[in-house]
């Protein structure tokens, strides 16, 4: 789960990481009032995306009037960044912060490292730019330190990181405190990423988190109701939000064949094979192992709410998921909302015979496929 920069900074501040003073503004007047508190201010669009600066979502205001003008333009604008895709994201609120006199920019983050089953601190003396770019162009500028989830990092490891990124010795103590607080936040709140970019050394010799990003492990949200409250549904695809209400793993794509599959691997493979046969999937959808008839019905509703969908391909190989549940879901969806597009169904696995019987008895107009390739071929043809 992602949150906004202003929320990430509030969280970091609560954990003792220094951040610039800032105020959230949802109107230009609020931005004006906030900017009056600073000699100069920076107005920052709050959307769930990196690369906002290059898209025009971060601007310096020398006066409160200028901040008001910038906020007027920014709130309501469609901000396109490298990460949002061409459709961009609408800006609903801005963060007005005190402008900082920057001496040097660094990069600092903590993430999970799967190979060592621990955390990894990633740091660089080349901050401010996107870390992927640094990694691709100057991998030698990236410093990594692996950290145990039990013990955290040892002081000497933190000092080693500080030394390698060229941090002045007099800031080492502050750096260690910052790193320790970030680690505490990461572990206590089950984060998947805590990133400060840039981490700034100010002209008056302080370390401060000028921009921040905090992502959370979706699997752990069940034990962090306070984190769930930070979710901003306006930032998410409405179909994906609806899917998450039913515990469906759905990702919106751009094609015209709706896919309903069990298992993430098979769902990806289904997308692959549709494209191999010249079609284009409208979505990735894994109904999971424990879907009920209600959830399958909801899945159909979501697929059919996409106006691009011209055919639906159901690809089920039941293990934990029983074919009769899928079949009942199909029938229930057809009765409730009507399935207006051609429906290709491939069923295999647990309770497959009952599943096929249910579909047959329903009298629905279903194109039955013998196997996965057959289903993809039939779906591609039906969507044309």
């Amino acid at each position, binding site marked *: 789960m992602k949150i906004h920069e202003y929320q990430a900074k509030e969280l970091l501040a609560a954990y003792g990481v220094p951040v610039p003073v800032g105020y959230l503004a949802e109107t230009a007047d609020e931005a004006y009032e906030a900017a009056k508190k600073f000699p100069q201010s920076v107005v920052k669009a709050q959307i769930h995306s990196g690369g906002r600066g290059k898209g025009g979502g971060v601007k310096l205001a020398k006066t409160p009037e200028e901040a008001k003008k910038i906020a007027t333009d920014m709130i309501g604008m469609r901000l396109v960044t490298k990460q949002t895709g061409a459709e961009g994201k609408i800006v609903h609120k801005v963060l007005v912060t005190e402008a900082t006199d920057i001496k040097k920019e660094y990069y600092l983050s903590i993430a999970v490292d*799967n190979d060592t089953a621990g955390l990894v601190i990633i740091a660089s003396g080349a901050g401010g730019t996107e870390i992927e770019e640094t990694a691709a162009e100057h991998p030698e500028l990236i410093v990594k330190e692996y950290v145990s989830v039990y013990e955290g990092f040892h002081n000497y490891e933190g000092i080693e990181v500080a030394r390698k990124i060229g941090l002045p010795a007099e800031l080492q103590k502050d750096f260690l405190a910052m790193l320790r607080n970030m680690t505490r936040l990461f572990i206590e709140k089950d984060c998947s990423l805590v990133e400060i970019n840039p981490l700034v050394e100010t002209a008056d010799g302080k370390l401060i988190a000028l921009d921040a990003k905090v992502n959370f492990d979706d699997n752990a949200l069940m034990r962090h109701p306070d984190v769930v409250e930070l979710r901003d549904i306006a930032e998410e695809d409405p179909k994906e939000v609806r899917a998450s209400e039913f515990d469906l793993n759905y990702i919106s794509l751009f094609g015209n064949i709706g896919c309903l599959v069990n298992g993430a*691997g098979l769902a990806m493979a289904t997308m692959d094979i549709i494209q191999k046969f010249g079609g284009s999937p409208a979505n990735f959808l894994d109904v999971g192992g424990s879907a009920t008839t209600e959830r399958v019905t909801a899945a159909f509703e979501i697929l059919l709410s996409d106006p691009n969908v011209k055919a639906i391909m159901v690809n089920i190989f039941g293990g934990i998921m029983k074919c009769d549940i899928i079949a009942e879901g199909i029938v229930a969806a057809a009765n409730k909302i009507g399935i207006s597009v051609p429906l290709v169904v491939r069923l295999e696995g647990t309770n497959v015979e009952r599943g096929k019987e249910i579909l047959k008895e329903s009298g629905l107009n279903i194109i039955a496929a013998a196997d996965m390739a057959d289903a993809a071929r039939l779906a591609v043809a039906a969507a044309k």
Partner: protein
Amino acid sequence: MSILVNKETRLIVQGITGGQGRFHTEQMLAYGTNIVAGVTPGKAGQDVCGVPVFDTVKQAKEATNANASIIYVPPKFAADSIFEAVDAELDLVVCITEGIPVLDMARVKNYMVGKKTRLIGPNCPGLISPGESKVGILPGYIHKKGHVGVISRSGTLTYEAVGQLSARGIGQSTAVGIGGDPIRGTSFIDALKLFNEDDDTYAIVMIGEIGGSGEEDAAAWIKENMKKPVAAFISGQTAPKGKRMGHAGAIISGGKGTAAGKIAALREVGVKVADTPDRIGEMLVEAIKEAGIYEKCLVAE
């Protein structure tokens, strides 16, 4: 022979009184798996399909001499169930549960270092040695006893691969789903090693997907060690970038993790990689024909 599970496997079902636990206990019993006990805290004394229920894994092991367990416990409590199975010193624990917090699994993985228990999963379909024992949720009837080992990160693609093998008269020694989570108990290399050493396994199918570097690592291992033909499939060739993986993940993998990279790494070391998921069986047939062991792999009808 087979790997990891066989007729000697004496299984405990953790979470046996839940909906999934109950259903799959029934299914595993029907397949012939020797389930000796179930565990649900607070439910000792009950029975499920004739299987006695205990409060703890330790009690269940002491009473029944069990050597393996399978976990159908909700994500919030699943890591604790793994700790319990490890502390009871079972040989094998298979965790089916999907959605365990990543940091929980990081703790489990660290805790298991140096312990005797092997973990399969989590977020996996379990494993099956056809005709001997099924420890998982795989549909038993698609399998045939034979000589091809199957390893997969995806449950349903395991079934897909097995279905294609069986349809071609090629049986399986063991099919193992190692799970779709980023931190897992058993890696591709662990499973490849076991199959390489198993006299009854003549060839191997491995199914990977985007993310992480398990497949690339496996390719390097295959180059140095593998004595048997291998066929593979990698899913996610057309998956959109950045939708699943966060920033930092992309850095850690440092250019690794794409389907194209994995396919290239495997082909480089002589693995037959299927372009599409419907051709996994064909690729294995091609590999065993080239190795001159096609007839040996066929199931006697």
